[in-house]
C-alpha cells in the first residue's frame, strides 16, 4: 500500500491558515505549543496506508435501524 510520507512538512503559515479555516484562532503562545506537537501528528497521518480498493469500507458503518430509532 502507498502512504504520504514523501510529502514535505507543513509550514507554520500553512498551519495557522488551516486552523483559521477551522474557525480556531490561537494566541501566539498557544500557537507555539501547537506547532511543537503538530509534526508528531503529521507523521502519523502520513504513515496511514492509502490505496484501498473502491469497495473497502471504513470501520464506521451506518446501521439505520439503530440510528433512527425514535
Amino acid at each position, binding site marked *: 500500500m502507498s502512504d504520504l510520507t514523501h510529502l514535505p512538512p507543513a509550514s507554520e503559515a500553512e498551519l495557522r491558515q488551516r486552523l483559521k479555516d477551522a474557525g480556531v484562532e490561537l494566541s501566539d503562545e498557544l500557537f507555539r505549543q501547537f506547532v*511543537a506537537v503538530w509534526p508528531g*501528528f503529521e507523521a*502519523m497521518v502520513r*504513515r496511514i*496506508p492509502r490505496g484501498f480498493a473502491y469497495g473497502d469500507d*471504513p470501520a464506521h458503518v451506518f446501521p439505520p435501524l439503530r440510528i433512527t*430509532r425514535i
Partner: protein
Amino acid sequence: MDVSFLTIAELSEAYRKGETSPVAATKALLDRIEQHDGSLHSFIRVTPEVALADAEAAEREMAAGKRRGPLHGIPYALKDIIETAGIVTTGHSKIRQDHVPVEDAEVARRLKAAGAVLVGKLATWEFSHGGPSFDLPWPPARNPWNTDYLPGGSSSGAGAAVAAGLVPFAIGTDTGGSVRGPAAFCGLAGLKPSYGRVSRRGVYSNTFTMDHCGPLTRSAEDVAAVMTAIAGHDPEDPSTEDMPVPDYLAELGGGIRGLRLGVVEGWHDGPGAHRELGGAIDAAVGVLEGLGARIERVKLTGLREYTDCKSIISAVEHFAIHAEEFRARPQDFGRIFRNRVLPGAIIRGEDYVQALRWRAVLAREQAAALQKVDAFVTAASLGVADRANPDAVAADRFAFGLSITQPFSISGVPALAIPCGFTRAEGLPLSLQIAAGPMQDALVLRIAHAYQQATDWHRRHPVLG
C-alpha cells in the same frame, strides 16, 4: 473489621454473616478517604450524603431479607466523565467545572438499581484524554504504591482509589487503554469490555466507536460481579448489542485446560518495553501453561500502526465534540488536552476515512488470528507508572509513544489487565493483558480467574503513609 482491602465478594459475604454492614463499611471508607486522599487526589468530589443514604437503604433492605445481588451495599466511585443526576460532573476540566447533569448515565443507573453505594466522583485526565496535567482546576491523582509516581490514565482516580483501599471498585472508561493502563500501573484488574456490551449513554464522549465503560477492581471475580450489573442492551445507545448477557460469575469456573492462548510476538518484547516486563510475562504464561493451556505464538501488525490509526481517529472525533469550545475559549483547556485534540481541526477528511479503512483491516487481522487461538496474551503496559514530574509530562511523550492497549481498542474486543509481578527497580506493578473475540468477555474473565487462583499478585496492597 477492616474493610479497606476486601474484595466485593468478601465484603458481600461479610454483610451476609453480619460481620459488618453497608453503613459501617461506607463510614469506614469515607473516613479512609478523608485520611488519605489529601496525598492521593483520587477524588474530585466525595458524596458522603449520597453514600450514607444509599448505604442505609441497602441496610434496610437486607434487614428485611432482600438481597439485590453481589453489589448490594458495596461502595464504589465513578470516573468524573460519567454523568450523575444532581452531582457535578466536571470531566476534570475547567470547561465543565460547574456542570450538573439532570440524569444519571445508564451505567450509573444500573449500579443504583443493583444497590451499589456511590461515594464520589474520581479524577481523570481532562475529558478522559488530556493528561496527566498539572494546569487543571484539580491536581492529577497519585499512585498509592509510591506517591512520587502517577497512576496512569485516563481513569487515574479510579486506579488510585481502588488500589489505595478507598473503594472496592470503580467505574472507569477506556478508549485507548484508560481502564487497563491505570489497572496495570496500580496492580488491579481492569476490563475494557467488548464494544457494545456496556452502554456509553451519559458518558462524555471521546471517540465514539472506541469508548467503553469498564470496572477496575481487585480481582477478576470482582470484575465479573460488576459486569453482571452493568452489561446489557440499552435501546437509547445505538452502539449496544441486543443479545443475552451471560452470568459472568457462573462462568468463571471450569479452568482453562485445553484452551489455545496466543502470545503476541513483538509487542511486550519489542522496542520500549521495560527490561523486567518480558520475564514477568514469560512467568505468567508459564503459570497458564501449567494450568493446562496450550501456548502458541501469534504475529500481528506492529504497535506503531495501531497507535497511528487510533490517534488520528481520536483526534478528529474528539475535536468535533469540543469544536465550539475550541473556537470560543481554547485557553480554558489544559495544555496537553488542547495539543492532543487540536490536530483534529486540521486533519483532512480523507485522512480520517483512510484511518477508518485501515482500522477495518487491523480488526480483521485479529479476527483471523482468533480462528487459530482462543485468546491473546500480552502485557497491559510496556512500562511501569511514570514519575509525577510536571516538566517531563509537559513534553507530552504520551501523545506519540507506543500503546499496547490500543490494538484491542481498534478491534473492540474484550481485554483485561491483571497484575503479574512487580519490578525490582521501582517496586511498581507489572500487568498481563488477556483479550478474546467480540463478546467473549466471560472467556477473558475465566482465564484471568484461573490465573489468580494460582497466584497472589492481586492480593498485594500498598502501605499508605
